[in-house]
């Protein structure tokens, strides 16, 4: 990518530094700002990170997967979105792939991720 584009992106990438490091396999808790009419509240979304895309660009996103009422739910967050209030890393996972899509086919005990220690 062009140096000049990086220069422009810098000004919009401050949010990057305020989050902890995390990668796929980690369990995270995302605090998202939700607007309802005039009111704003915080919603939490907790699950495993299954991928990070377009890393080190301003378009970087990550996908969080959780099981909600027996149904798998995946949510994609833009890393630099101002709607993300906070990212908490609850657990570091040990995985071999950068994109752990194989979790989608598994549930229950088989969908566990080993903890990194």
């Amino acid at each position, binding site marked *: *990518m*062009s140096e*000049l*584009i990086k*220069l*422009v*992106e810098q*000004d*919009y990438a401050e949010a990057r530094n305020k989050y902890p490091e995390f990668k796929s396999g980690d369990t995270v808790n995302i605090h998202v700002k939700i607007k309802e009419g005039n009111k704003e509240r915080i919603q939490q979304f907790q699950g495993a990170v299954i991928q990070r895309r377009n890393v080190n*660009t*301003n*378009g970087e996103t990550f996908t969080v997967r959780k099981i909600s009422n027996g149904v798998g739910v995946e949510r994609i967050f*833009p890393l*630099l*979105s*101002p*709607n993300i209030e906070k990212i908490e890393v609850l657990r570091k996972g040990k995985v071999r792939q950068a994109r752990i899509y194989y979790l989608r086919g598994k549930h229950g005990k088989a969908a566990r991720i080993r903890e990194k220690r």
Partner: protein
Amino acid sequence: MPGVLGKKIGMTSVFLPDGKNVACTVIEAGPCFVTQIKTEETDGYEAVQVGYGSKKEKNTTNALKGHFKKANVDPLRHLVEFRDFKEVYSEDLNLGDELRVESVFEEGEFVDIVGTSKGKGFQGVVKRHGFRGVGDATHGQHNRLRAPGSIGGASFPARVFKGMRMAGQTGGDRVKVLNLKIIKILPEQNLVLVGGSVPGSKNSMVILEK
């Protein structure tokens, strides 16, 4: 309308304070130099000629070398003429004056951008004019999938009307996109961030018009 010449650098996306993510084009705009001022008396009309982009002296024709020498500027790659420039470049213009983005545009303003679209070669009607093709691969169709269909009557008018949309060279045209918002200006690097896309490939010349 007058404006500033520049070079398309590429695209990115940024989040605005209101939380919206906008696709943006980065343009290196200016600095431009005034190379000629045309007047009613000498040329029959009023205009200003503006140049942008450096070029080697050895690649410049002698005629142009003289032209640039008059304005006392280094050889420039692109020259464009603007009429009705008085309101835009406010101060009195002289030969060789430098025009910078931040003096012509401000953040939040809407600009029109002119560029040369990417050449696509000889294309059929589906790509070139958005025809839908036949839509059926079976039911008796054979090699008609992206065909234009009828181009007119047979016995009357017994000819094809002028301007009938057909296959041909696509892209490579001068295209103007209207009302793109300037999101940010970085004066030190001569960079402009505009919302939306801009015709042409990276490193191609674009004109930002007021």
